[in-house]
C-alpha cells in the first residue's frame, strides 16, 4: 500500500507529452490522454467530506504514561538491543524480532509463528505496533502488563525457551550490556524486572499514528479518496460493516474478547480467552487486534486463516463460519462487492509512515581473538 496522495498519483503527464512529440501520428491520442488527465485530476483530488465530531474518537493521542516504567531514551536503547538479540533464547537462535519483524509490520507474515527449533506455534504473531495503547496483552489476555508480556515468549518452551540463569550471566559478562543497564536503570541489578522493563519501553516506542486517515482527521480532506471515505462509512455504520463495534477507539480495538466464528478443526479447538476466564461466552474468544498498519500484517485472524483483508471482510460478510459460540455482534452483513472493496480500501489508509528501523550493534563479549590465532583462509567453510 502506497501512502501516495491522489495528487501524487496523477504525475505521469510529461511521459505522454514526450511520446506525442516523437510520434505525431498518435499525438492526437496522447493529447486526449493528457487532456483527460488534466480534466480527471481535479476529480481525483476532489475533497471528501470532513470528519464529523464522532470521528475524532479515532484520533490517537499521546502515549499513555506508565508510572511504574516511564520511557527514557536509555531504557528504549537497551530494549532495542535486547529485542534483536537472539542470545536471549535457549539456543541463541531466536530473538523477539524473529517473529516481530519490523520489515513485516512487526509481525512475521506467517499463518502462525515459528518458535525455537522450528516449532510451529498455534497462534499468529500479533504486531507490536501501538502496543503502548493497549490494556490487554496476548491473544487471550493472559499477561497483565506489557512488562509481563515481554517475558512470556522467553519463558515459553516452544518459543524462545530462555534459560534465565544463563541469560543473566551473559548480559552481566558483557561490558556493553552492563553499561546499557546502568544507564537505563542506575543502581538496579540486571535481572528479569529490568529486562522486562527495557523490552516494554522499547516496544512502547513502536507507534503508528500518522496515516492518511489521521491526516484526514486532522482536516486534510484530500488525504482520502472518495472510495476510502466510503469505506470508512461502511466501517462505522452499525447497519453496514459494524466493524467499529469492536475495532473502536483511537487504536481500532476495544481491548475486548470476541468469538468471531473462525472455523476450527474438530478436536483442535483453541479455547482462547476461556483459558483465562472460564466463562461460557469466552470459549473461542480472542482479543480484538488493532487495525493500525493492518495492511502490513497479513495473514489475518489468530490462526492466520485469512490470507488477505478481502478474505477477512468476506468472513464477516457471511457472519462467520463456526457458529457454536459466536459473538452476538457477528452476523451476516449483506454487503455488496463495492462496499467490501471500499472497506478494504479504507483499511489501507490506516498504514502509517514506516520509519527505517536500525538494527542495533549488539554488545559483544570482550574476549576478542588474539593476534596469535591464525585467520581461517576460507571464512565461509570456517563458519560452517
Amino acid at each position: 500500500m502506497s501512502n501516495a496522495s491522489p495528487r501524487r498519483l496523477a504525475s505521469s503527464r510529461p511521459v505522454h507529452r514526450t511520446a506525442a512529440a516523437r510520434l505525431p501520428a498518435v499525438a492526437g491520442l496522447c493529447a486526449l490522454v493528457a487532456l483527460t488527465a488534466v480534466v480527471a485530476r481535479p476529480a481525483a483530488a476532489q475533497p471528501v467530506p470532513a470528519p464529523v465530531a464522532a470521528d475524532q474518537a479515532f484520533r490517537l493521542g499521546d502515549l499513555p504514561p506508565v508510572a511504574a516504567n516511564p520511557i527514557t531514551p536509555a531504557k528504549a536503547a537497551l530494549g532495542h538491543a535486547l529485542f534483536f538479540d537472539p542470545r536471549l533464547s535457549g539456543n541463541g537462535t531466536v530473538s523477539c524480532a524473529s517473529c516481530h519483524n519490523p520489515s513485516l509490520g512487526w509481525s512475521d507474515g506467517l499463518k502462525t509463528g515459528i518458535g525455537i527449533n522450528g516449532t510451529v506455534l498455534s497462534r499468529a504473531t500479533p504486531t507490536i505496533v501501538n502496543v503502548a495503547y493497549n490494556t490487554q496483552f496476548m491473544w487471550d489476555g493472559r499477561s497483565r502488563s506489557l512488562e509481563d508480556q515481554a517475558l512470556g515468549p522467553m519463558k515459553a518452551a516452544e518459543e524462545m525457551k530462555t534459560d534465565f540463569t544463563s541469560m543473566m550471566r551473559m548480559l552481566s559478562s558483557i561490558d556493553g550490556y552492563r553499561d546499557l543497564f546502568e544507564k537505563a536503570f542506575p543502581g538496579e541489578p540486571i535481572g528479569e524486572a529490568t529486562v522486562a522493563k527495557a523490552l516494554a519501553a522499547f516496544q512502547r516506542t513502536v507507534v503508528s499514528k500518522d496515516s492518511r486517515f489521521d491526516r484526514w482527521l486532522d482536516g486534510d480532506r484530500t488525504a482520502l479518496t472518495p472510495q476510502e471515505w466510503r469505506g470508512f462509512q461502511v466501517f462505522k455504520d452499525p447497519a453496514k460493516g459494524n466493524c467499529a463495534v469492536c475495532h473502536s477507539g483511537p487504536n481500532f480495538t476495544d481491548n475486548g474478547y470476541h468469538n468471531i466464528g473462525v472455523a476450527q478443526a474438530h478436536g483442535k479447538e483453541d479455547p482462547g480467552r476461556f483459558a483465562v476466564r472460564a466463562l461460557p461466552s469466552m470459549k473461542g474468544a480472542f482479543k480484538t487486534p488493532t487495525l493500525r498498519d493492518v495492511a502490513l500484517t497479513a495473514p489475518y485472524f489468530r490462526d492466520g486463516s485469512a490470507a488477505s483483508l478481502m478474505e477477512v471482510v468476506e468472513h464477516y460478510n457471511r457472519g462467520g463460519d463456526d457458529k457454536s459460540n459466536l459473538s452476538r455482534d457477528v452476523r451476516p452483513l449483506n454487503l455488496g462487492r463495492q462496499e467490501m472493496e471500499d472497506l478494504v480500501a479504507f483499511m489501507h489508509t490506516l498504514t502509517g509512515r514506516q520509519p527505517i528501523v536500525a538494527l542495533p550493534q549488539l554488545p559483544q563479549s570482550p574476549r576478542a581473538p588474539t593476534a596469535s590465532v591464525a585467520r581461517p583462509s576460507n571464512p565461509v567453510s570456517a563458519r560452517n
Partner: protein
Amino acid sequence: MTKNLSSRLSCGALRLVLTAAMIAVPAVGSAAEHVVSQKGKAFNVKTLKVKVGDAVKFVNEDPFSHNVFSLSAAKNFDLGTYPQGGAKSVTFDKPGTVEVECAIHPDMQMVVEVAK
C-alpha cells in the same frame, strides 16, 4: 440564613438526583433493587454500596453486547451475555466486596460493597 437554606436545599436536590440515578427501588421487606447501566463501555458507577439481600439490575444501554460476572468469594456469578436493552439482576446474599466485570470488555469494572 437564606443562603444556608438554599445551600441545604440544593444539597438535598443533588442527593435526590444521585439517588434517582442509582434507582434503588425498595423490594420485598427491606431489600432494594439497584440499577446499574452499562453505557460507553463502562458501568455508570465505580462503586455501589448495597445491603445483604439487595439486588442489582444491570442494564445494557450500549448498541452491542455486554456481559456481567464476578469471581469474588462474596458473590460468584455470571449473568451471561446480552444485547442492547437487555437487563439481568443478581441478589447479593453475603456481606463483602464483590468485583464486577464485563468478560467481553475487561476494562469495564466496578465494585459492589455489600454490607450487613
